[in-house]
Structures are given as structure tokens and as C-alpha cells.
């Protein structure tokens, strides 16, 4: 490989921030908090909660439906917390990379809204939009900015405001509700899965002193979108989602809403296949020597080990690719699944947990069902 200019630099995460809106909402209250569709109880809710293991979460909506914060507002609060943690201020950011599933506005990008909410001066922005793995897209961008010497301080942030999508008005009067007032499973399941919040990390070319930092070894993302129809999506119906000309914006907002295309949806049969595809990418990383499972001291992932089915755990064990459950660190039961923000919320809690010790290797895994993607980030505690 040829190199021109200065050599690539090592990059460290020096600040960690998280923001969770409002008080925690327990499983007994969450359905009433979001609002019941046509006043009915969910058919799949209990099953969804058993599967994902979530016991409480946070919403940026009050129980009466009032909006307490914006996606950009939450993301900005997480960025401020991360800067604070790093001992830096707003004026120090040179590159701001944001991730989200859906910003507050359709246009322009989320990063601009976050910058505005922060009240930050002129800086370079990048908006990454996907689902959970957008977090690592932004992290990879920020990492490379610092690594290449383009920025001295880069921030990777992620925010989600999923609960707005889960209010009854998003479903009532649409084709997602049947004649008996029951909400379609592909819509209902996610109401019990996703919630709100934001997280951020600060990256610099040197570790902080004193205190623990995380050296970024590498970030790998693999998308398998060429092989799968959308697995989690918004903007088309279940039946038509493979065709891009079925997009909500082609039909127009009113027609699309009536068809049930303006809702977050998940195909759970396809999800089972996508999980196997994630495992396939993981096994390939192990097989090629990119990851040595027995050298990973801490694993952070916003899926719980217990939600993996018996045959998947069996496969991982039989292929010497399982990382034992005692090495998994998670806040999933308390903070819920916050999509792209989950990984930073977990990492922030991990750094405060007393678990990381200098020399430990920390692996972040971010699977995204969207159109089948998985990301990995390898870190070392310094």
C-alpha cells in the first residue's frame, strides 16, 4: 500500500454520553403510556417482552401524548454529556457525525438539527441514516476523520424517537388494523421493542490522562441488502415493500397512511433468517481470524444472549465461536432497545460500571434487521 502525507493516527474514545428522557416506564405501564390502538390490549405484547427481555424503557412522550423532547434535542444532550465527560466544550468539535433511524424532519439531515440544538458554531457534519447500525457508520466516519488527521476532535452521536411512531393515530384508520380492531403483528411487535434516547462518544488522537479511554482497533460493517427484502422498514406495506415504486412518497402521504405504509414494520419470519445471516458474518469473522472469541473480555450488544434460540447458541458453541454470557454487558433490560443509540448508552454505562480494566478488549456488535446488516467495533481499554 502506498502512503502519502502523514501516517494514520491511533484514535481513542475519550468521552461518553447518554441521555434518556423522562422516568423509566415499566412493562405494566408501557402500553397505556403509548396508547392502546382502538382501546384494545395487544395480542403479541407479552410474547414480545418475554423474547426481548426488556423490563423498562424511556419515552420522550408523556402518557397523554405530549412531546417532551425532539430526537435532535435528545441527541444534542448526549453530545453535551460526552463532551463534558471528555473535558471538552462545544467549540472543540470539528466533525459531528450523527446516526438515527429517522430524524425529526424528513429534510434536511439529522446532524444539522443536532448542531442547531447544540448551538454549536461552524463545523463539519455528516448525517448517517439507517437503523441500529447507523451508529457504527457514524463511528467509522468519525474515527477515520481523526485517524486521517482531518479532525482533532470528532463526535459520533446517535438518537432515536421511536415512540412517536407508536401512537394510536399512526395505525387507526389504516389497513394495519383489521375489522375487529386488531393491529397487525408486523406493526404491533415493534411497539414492545423500541424506545427513546440518545448516546454519543468523543474521539481524539490521544487517550485522556488521567482516566480510562478506549483505543479503537477497527470497525467493520457488512450489509447483505442485495440478498434480502426489507426486514424492518417504514414507507411501504408488507406486501409491496420489495418494490421501490411502492414508496409512500409516490402514493402521496394520505394514500400511503391509509394503506398502512407510514408505520414502522417488521417481518418476523424474515428476521429469523436475517439472524442466521448475522451469525454467518460473525462466524466468518472468527474463521478468518479477525476476531478471537476467547480474547474478548467484554461483549456489548443490544440483543440479549437469551433471545438467541437454542439452535443458534448450540451452533456457536459447537463452532467454538460463543462468547460466554458472563462476558456480555448490557443495559437492555433497564434502558430498552434504543435502536442506533443503544450501543452508546450501553458503552457509557459500561465505562461507569467498574468493569473495564486497562488491556481489556471490548467488542461492540450492532446487528440491524433493516435490510440485513451487522457491524463490529473492536476496542481496547487504555
Amino acid at each position, binding site marked *: 500500500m502506498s502512503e502519502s502525507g502523514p501516517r494514520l493516527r491511533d484514535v481513542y474514545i475519550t468521552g461518553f454520553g447518554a441521555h434518556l428522557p423522562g422516568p423509566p416506564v415499566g412493562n405494566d405501564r408501557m402500553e397505556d403510556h403509548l396508547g392502546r390502538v382502538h382501546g384494545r390490549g395487544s395480542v403479541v405484547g407479552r410474547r414480545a417482552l418475554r423474547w426481548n427481555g426488556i423490563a423498562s424503557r424511556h419515552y420522550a412522550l408523556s402518557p397523554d401524548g405530549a412531546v417532551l423532547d425532539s430526537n435532535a434535542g435528545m441527541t444534542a444532550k448526549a453530545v453535551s454529556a460526552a463532551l463534558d465527560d471528555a473535558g471538552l466544550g462545544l467549540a472543540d468539535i470539528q466533525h459531528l457525525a450523527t446516526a438515527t433511524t429517522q430524524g425529526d424532519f424528513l429534510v434536511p439531515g439529522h446532524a444539522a438539527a443536532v448542531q442547531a440544538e447544540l448551538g454549536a458554531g461552524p463545523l463539519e457534519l455528516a448525517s448517517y441514516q439507517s437503523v441500529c447500525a447507523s451508529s457504527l457508520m457514524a463511528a467509522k466516519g468519525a474515527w477515520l476523520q481523526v485517524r486521517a488527521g482531518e479532525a482533532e476532535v470528532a463526535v459520533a452521536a446517535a438518537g432515536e424517537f421511536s415512540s412517536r411512531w407508536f401512537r394510536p393515530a399512526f395505525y387507526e384508520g389504516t389497513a394495519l388494523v383489521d375489522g375487529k380492531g386488531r393491529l397487525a403483528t408486523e406493526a404491533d411487535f415493534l411497539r414492545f421493542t423500541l424506545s427513546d434516547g440518545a448516546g454519543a462518544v468523543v474521539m481524539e488522537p490521544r487517550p485522556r490522562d488521567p482516566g480510562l479511554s478506549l483505543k479503537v482497533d477497527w470497525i467493520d460493517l457488512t450489509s447483505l441488502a*442485495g440478498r434480502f427484502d426489507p426486514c424492518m422498514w417504514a414507507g411501504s406495506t408488507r406486501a409491496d415493500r420489495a418494490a421501490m415504486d411502492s414508496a409512500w412518497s409516490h402514493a402521496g402521504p394520505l394514500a400511503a397512511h391509509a394503506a398502512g405504509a407510514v408505520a414502522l414494520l417488521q417481518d418476523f419470519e424474515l428476521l429469523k433468517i436475517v439472524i*442466521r445471516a448475522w*451469525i*454467518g458474518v460473525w462466524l*466468518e469473522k472468527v474463521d478468518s481470524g479477525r476476531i478471537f472469541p476467547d480474547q474478548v473480555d467484554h461483549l456489548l450488544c443490544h440483543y440479549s444472549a437469551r433471545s438467541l434460540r437454542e439452535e443458534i447458541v*448450540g*451452533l456457536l458453541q*459447537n*463452532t*467454538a465461536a460463543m462468547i460466554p454470557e458472563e462476558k456480555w454487558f448490557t443495559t437492555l433490560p433497564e434502558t430498552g432497545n434504543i435502536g442506533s443509540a443503544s450501543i452508546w448508552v450501553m458503552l457509557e454505562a459500561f465505562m461507569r460500571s467498574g468493569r473495564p480494566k486497562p488491556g481489556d478488549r471490548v467488542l461492540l456488535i450492532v446487528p440491524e434487521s433493516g435490510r440485513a446488516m451487522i457491524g463490529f467495533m473492536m476496542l481496547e481499554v487504555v
Partner: protein
Amino acid sequence: MAGEPTTEAAVADVLRKLAVVFADFEQRLEATPLIRKLTRGRFELADYHAFLINLRQQVKDGALWMSRAASNIGEDHLELRSTLMQHAVTEHRDFRLLEQDFVASGGALADILSARKNVGSEALSAWMFHEASKPDPFGLLGAMWIIEGLGSIKARPWGLKVRERLGLPDEALRFLLYHGDNDVAHMEEFRDMLAMVLPDEAVAERIVTTAKVTARLYALQIEEIAA
């Protein structure tokens, strides 16, 4: 460097490589026109009939190449020979199920009996018999991983989707539904078979290569199905 790996480590290593091959195989299958029709709600009875017709050749040949492979296993591996022979006995009439499903779903028996192999089935069949004709054809364990994996992981979900889409009774779906048996037990049995021939670097490489070729040819067989 350490010396010979343990049997356990060698088995885990091959299984991991096979799982990666299977993941790629499953994704290729998902992208074939026939499976796309099934998952996108466009699957018709004619597609189901074409599916059964085209599977039948491969299922019928399965027990035959397995028998031939067993007959080519030397006396150092009698246990593996026994296992393959048992497998062949268990499966050698399975193609009759496909014929019965075809008739129960409204097809004419003569149509499935007289159908020709598609391009992919021709290639797959030739490849399997070629491999099975070699002495000690242990590479075929890789082919079994692909084909049996399909039976234990994919067949039943496909059967349920066909039932949901076409509203067929279970007696017209027995081949697909009946294959969804215990995956965990399958895995244990397969590990035992690998342990009969590993550790051996050349054998390990052959098993993985045979799995890759079989997966590509199998996917071609499904890709070639058009109602």
C-alpha cells in the same frame, strides 16, 4: 506452534466453515425467483408443482449417491459406512412423498414421473455421483451438511408458507412439513460423523470445498425452477 489439533477443535473448525457456507447458501436461495415468489406472496399452485417436480430428482438421487459413497468407504471407517447406509435406508423412499404431495395438491402423477431434470439438477446429480465414486469420499459430509441443513432448517418454514399462501391441506405438504425435525439432534449426529474422519487437514479442506460446490449447484437447481 502446537502439534495436531484435538478432534474437538478440528470438528469445531470445520463446522464453523460449514456454517459460513450454509449462511451464504441460504442467502442465495432467498434471492432465487421461486423463493422470492414465496416470500413476497406471489406463489401459485403451479409454482408449488414445479417445486415438487424439481426436488424429486435430487431427493431420489440422494439415497443413491449416499449408498454409492458408503460402498466406497474403506474398512478403516466402518462406523461411518454404517451411518451412511442407515441414512440411505431412511431416505431412499422419500421421493414417493413428493409424488404423493403432488397428486394430493391436484397434479397428475404422470407429470411428475415423466419430468426431466433441470440444468441445476443435472449438474448437482453428476457432481454427487462423481464424488461418491471416489475411494473414502469423506468430502460428501459437506454435501450432507448442505442438503440435510436445508431439510432441517428451511423445509418446514417453506411448507408453512406454502400452506398459508395456497390453503393446501397437510397431506399435500408432507415432504416439506415432515422434514422440520429436531435440529439439535441433527447437529449432534453430524458432529459425530465429522469426528470419525477428523483431524485431517486434507479431509477438512475437502469437506468444506464439497459443501461449497454442492451449495452452488443446489442453488442453481432452485434458480432454474420456473412454473
